[in-house]
């Protein structure tokens, strides 16, 4: 009999046809394989048992970079095919299939890289169909060499031979290259002059050994690298990059080396060594040799293994670990072009290890943390994008433009939601232009034209302003915390009503206030606000976010009125004399004093009361530093809080919490104890309000979303407490809990609204 087998998923540009070719030979079946618009089409002839076994192996033994989503077979009578052929792609081939993300070097290429007899010995751009650049070099589809930034390199005879040979690992490997014909490295100074032209790798190693800062071009952009064990060099990098406190990521050769610095759990090791190669947050070992300035005061360290051949060449023999941080000035997007890097990083880097393979689309490193044996993405980018989040339904054609900070965008096609790489904070001009370029690029390579545009209700978000200028798209506004909750629902294919707990820093509320400590009864298409933290004034608006002591004054005023000045705590004592007075006046007159229910601000305040942070240099700093104080084996008790119900809305009074913290501070209680008690309190608030809502609404599913739930300590406590009281708690593992997940939520909400006719 004859079988026609259709395979869908990531099956092009990943060595799928050679794999099928080899498989057919193994099974001894005649037939053919080709790329078509929906994926890969195969025909084989044999006995029923033979073709069924073959089809099973197509799925079961698929190449490492492929992702088979569907295999369907149709049977008919044999025609008497002879031999097995890889046929020319049919017209429109590879137009609607999935593009692979960029993938870390595979074991075969790594072996060849260090094999003195191999013709690619030490070649920094070695790759094959199982590894190498993809998403970052694709200008347009179909994914063929002329449509990538490799188009300027003409393959030599040997490379062309591999490229044309169906049995070769490099059959149709679009970035295929070698010493003879491919891209080259060079190490240059600010003015573009070459340093150490005969061996740029050795020269770079030499520079790094001397404590210099090297800008190194990788897959998705430039890194700034310094020797991670050289404290002085790391401090210099911080100074020049204007990055005061936020932890820097490191790269080390393998898990054996990493094991000397950090504790590694099995799931963490699996992620470290996966070809996606994210930065994984690991707990530091005491007395490790990494400079303290890499992650000052932090129990954790962001660690990744090398993923581009060039990283291996630098790390192989010479360094324990390198700091590898995004090649940018704080707030700007990562630099990707050689000229751009020389211009923008000239004040930071001492030398630049560049190459002539252009990056078309910048992509930052991804960052994950392992939570209860599953990944919890903090930044979803290289290695993950553009793999879509698959939904349980066909989606309307929607573009979701995300939030303002940590922006990502999301486009739908079929049942797939394509969340973009991390874009960044839109107020920065380069980032905003990157935002627009990413929208155009994703529309082009996915071949979709959205009809709807989903956006945040915050009138001042630049993504919102962009959305409202798109006259040809039907706009659908989605409330920020609703989007958070539905992003988590979409990940878990949840339908119907759930309790959505959305705790974050800032989101525009339906009443015009700043929300961020929200309890919703959420469905995909809509929500009811069933509870929230009490409103507190934010003296100075955005300034109260950058300077947590201001927010603390807002809380203290709510707790103690004007007698807050009598509270004998450092925050009040240390504030410049007239500043407290001025803030109190702002609160009473309401000048630049928005009201907020934000849980992020509550964290900021407690952090400020403990004198942890007066002002912050990066988003979430105060909360992160507070989390680092909390102890796993700390006290189990908590501070008091109140819950008042008015018209079915549960309002959490946080004043007793603040009063409790102030009392502890005045008593001189250990900040670690205060922080632990505070975390216990927030978990208890979540659980208590969920129970009240459940009592009246009869719901037992709780989704936890929003940036506050990146707090590992809080998340563990909350999930345990919810589970202990009979709730099923859902957390993020496909997109971040922070605003990087907003676009997915917007898309899912808009989709359901269109389906229900609610948006027209």
């Amino acid at each position, binding site marked *: 009999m004859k079988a026609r087998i259709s395979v869908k998923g990531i099956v092009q540009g990943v060595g799928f046809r050679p794999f099928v070719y080899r498989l057919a030979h193994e099974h001894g079946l005649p037939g053919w394989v080709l790329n078509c618009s929906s994926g890969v089409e195969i025909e084989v002839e044999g006995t029923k048992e033979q073709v069924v076994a073959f089809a099973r192996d197509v799925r079961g033994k698929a190449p490492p970079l492929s992702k088979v989503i569907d295999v369907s077979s149709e049977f008919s009578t044999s025609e008497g095919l002879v031999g097995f052929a890889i046929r020319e792609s049919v017209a429109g081939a590879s137009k609607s299939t999935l593009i692979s993300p960029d993938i870390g070097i595979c074991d075969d290429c790594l072996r060849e890289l260090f094999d003195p007899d191999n013709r690619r010995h030490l070649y920094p751009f070695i790759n094959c169909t199982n590894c190498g650049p993809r998403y970052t070099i694709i200008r347009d589809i179909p994914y063929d060499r002329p449509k990538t930034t490799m188009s300027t390199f003409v393959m030599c005879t040997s490379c062309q031979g591999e490229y044309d040979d169906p049995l070769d690992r490099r059959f149709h490997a679009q970035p295929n290259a070698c010493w003879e014909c491919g891209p080259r490295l060079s190490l240059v100074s600010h003015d573009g002059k070459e340093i150490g032209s005969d061996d740029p790798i050795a020269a770079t190693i030499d520079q790094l050994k001397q404590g210099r800062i090297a800008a190194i071009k990788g897959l998705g952009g430039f890194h700034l690298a310094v020797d991670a064990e050289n404290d002085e060099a790391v401090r210099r990098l911080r100074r020049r990059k204007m990055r005061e406190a936020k932890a820097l990521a490191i790269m080390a050769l393998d898990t054996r080396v990493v094991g000397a610095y950090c504790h590694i759990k099995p799931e963490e090791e699996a992620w470290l060594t996966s070809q996606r190669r994210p930065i994984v947050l690991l707990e530091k070992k005491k007395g490790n040799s990494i400079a303290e300035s890499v992650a000052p005061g932090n129990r954790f360290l962001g660690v990744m293994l090398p993923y581009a051949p060039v990283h291996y060449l630098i790390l192989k023999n010479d360094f324990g670990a390198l700091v590898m941080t995004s090649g940018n000035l704080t707030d*700007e997007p990562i630099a990707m072009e050689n000229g751009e890097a020389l211009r923008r990083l000239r004040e930071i880097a001492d030398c630049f290890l560049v190459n002539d393979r252009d990056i078309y689309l910048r992509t930052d490193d991804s960052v994950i943390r392992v939570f209860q044996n599953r990944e919890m993405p903090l930044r979803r980018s290289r290695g993950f994008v553009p793999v879509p989040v698959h939904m349980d339904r066909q989606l309307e054609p929607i573009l979701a433009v995300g939030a303002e900070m940590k922006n990502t965008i999301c486009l739908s096609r079929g049942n797939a939601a394509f969340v973009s790489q991390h874009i960044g*904070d839109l107020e920065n001009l380069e980032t905003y232009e990157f935002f627009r370029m990413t929208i155009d690029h994703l529309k082009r390579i996915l071949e979709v034209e959205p009809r709807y545009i989903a956006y945040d209700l915050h009138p001042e978000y630049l993504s919102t302003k962009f959305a409202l200028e798109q006259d040809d798209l039907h706009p659908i506004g989605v409330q920020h915390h609703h989007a958070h909750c539905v992003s988590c629902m979409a990940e878990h294919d949840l339908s119907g009503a759930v309790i959505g707990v959305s705790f974050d820093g800032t989101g525009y509320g339906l009443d015009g206030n700043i929300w961020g400590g929200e309890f919703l009864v959420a469905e995909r298409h809509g929500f009811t606000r069933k509870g929230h933290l009490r409103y507190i004034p934010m003296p*100075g*608006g955005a*300034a109260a976010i950058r300077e947590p002591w201001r927010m603390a004054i807002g809380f203290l005023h709510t707790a103690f009125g004007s007698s807050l000045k009598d509270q004998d705590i450092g925050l009040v004592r240390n504030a410049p004399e007239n*500043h407290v007075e001025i803030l109190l*006046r702002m609160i009473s007159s309401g000048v630049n004093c928005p009201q907020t229910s934000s849980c992020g601000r509550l964290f900021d305040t407690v952090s400020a009361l403990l004198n942890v942070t007066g002002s912050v240099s990066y988003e979430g700093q105060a909360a992160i530093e507070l989390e680092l104080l909390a102890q796993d084996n700390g006290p189990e008790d908590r501070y008091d809080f109140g819950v008042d119900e008015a018209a079915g809305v549960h309002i959490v009074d946080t004043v007793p919490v603040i009063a409790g913290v102030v009392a502890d501070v005045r008593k001189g209680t250990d900040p670690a104890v205060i922080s632990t008690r505070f975390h216990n309190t927030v978990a208890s608030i979540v659980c208590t309000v969920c129970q009240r809502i459940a009592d009246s609404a009869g719901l037992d599913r709780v989704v936890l979303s929003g940036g506050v739930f990146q707090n590992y300590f809080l998340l563990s406590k909350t999930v345990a407490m919810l589970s202990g009281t009979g709730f099923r708690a859902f957390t993020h593992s496909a997109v971040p809990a*922070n*605003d990087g997940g907003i676009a997915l939520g917007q898309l899912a909400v808009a989709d359901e609204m269109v389906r229900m006719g609610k948006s027209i």
Partner: protein
Amino acid sequence: MNYDRIVLAHGSGGQLGNDLVEKRFLPFLSNSILDKLNDQGVFELGKQRMAFTTDSYVVSPIFFPGGTIGDLAVNGTVNDVSMCGATPMYLSLGLILEEGLPLEELDRIMLSIQESTREAGVQIVTGDTKVVPKGSADKIFINTAGVGVLDAGVCISADNVRVGDAILVSGFIADHGMAIMSVREGLVFDNPILSDSAPLNGLVRDMMASGAEIHAMRDPTRGGLAATLNEFARSSGVGIAIGETELPVRPEVAEACRLLGLDPVRVANEGKLVAAVRDSDAESLLEVMRRNPRGGDSRIIGTVVAGPKNTVVMKTAKGDTRIVDMVVGGSLPRIC
């Protein structure tokens, strides 16, 4: 944003105010003069080109360091007439007085009106007075209108900004807004912040006489420099790039802004102008402006660029480039 009634943000000089004009006023009132949406209407009466404007003043407090509601009402209208290059001549004065206003305060306001009309060289030639019950107004509201004459061929307009132009500002920004705020919020500084309320027609006369090619000119009142530059960029379909370190801001004003969480580029001025000028004329014009007492601290703060279109960007002191957009309503934080 959809509102079914007026909110305060409709009056804060942001996008909501623009929406009000474009969606609710122009559909009823559209004509070729009004549609330009400049701060003044320009038309011909007989052979004479005229500029005509009106403005209402509701500032609180009515007395503040550096001025009163009275001189503000004269200067604001004089400046609006002047910004198209016209010479202001005659003003009207409409007063709405709240029951209970002490006559002594009214007298002080009249004195300041007299002084500012003298400096500007204009005359109040018609007026009106209404008194309303206590609570229906806040002490005193003033409306003024002004007319001026304009030479043939002068074309200074927000839609006339060209790529390559230099952007000039006539002195320290954010003084007026922060003077008012400081009084309201009880900010005390060693050097008190004074309003910059002043007539600019003398400065404009010197600028016109210099022969420099001035393409656009505006006084950045409500919404501050950011709003004015965004109006330039959008009306002319160009980009504007300014440098944070080039902006003239007095230290005490910068400190007050920091304390209140405000951005000096979004705070009101009442005696400053911003101009887009042919680049080759900019330095010589700057000299002329600096010789006038109302332009002594004039500076070049940026340039007009081809793109991104309709956008104002600012290179910050830190070195990154930030979009300075038009605010829609109030000043809600958008960071997390």
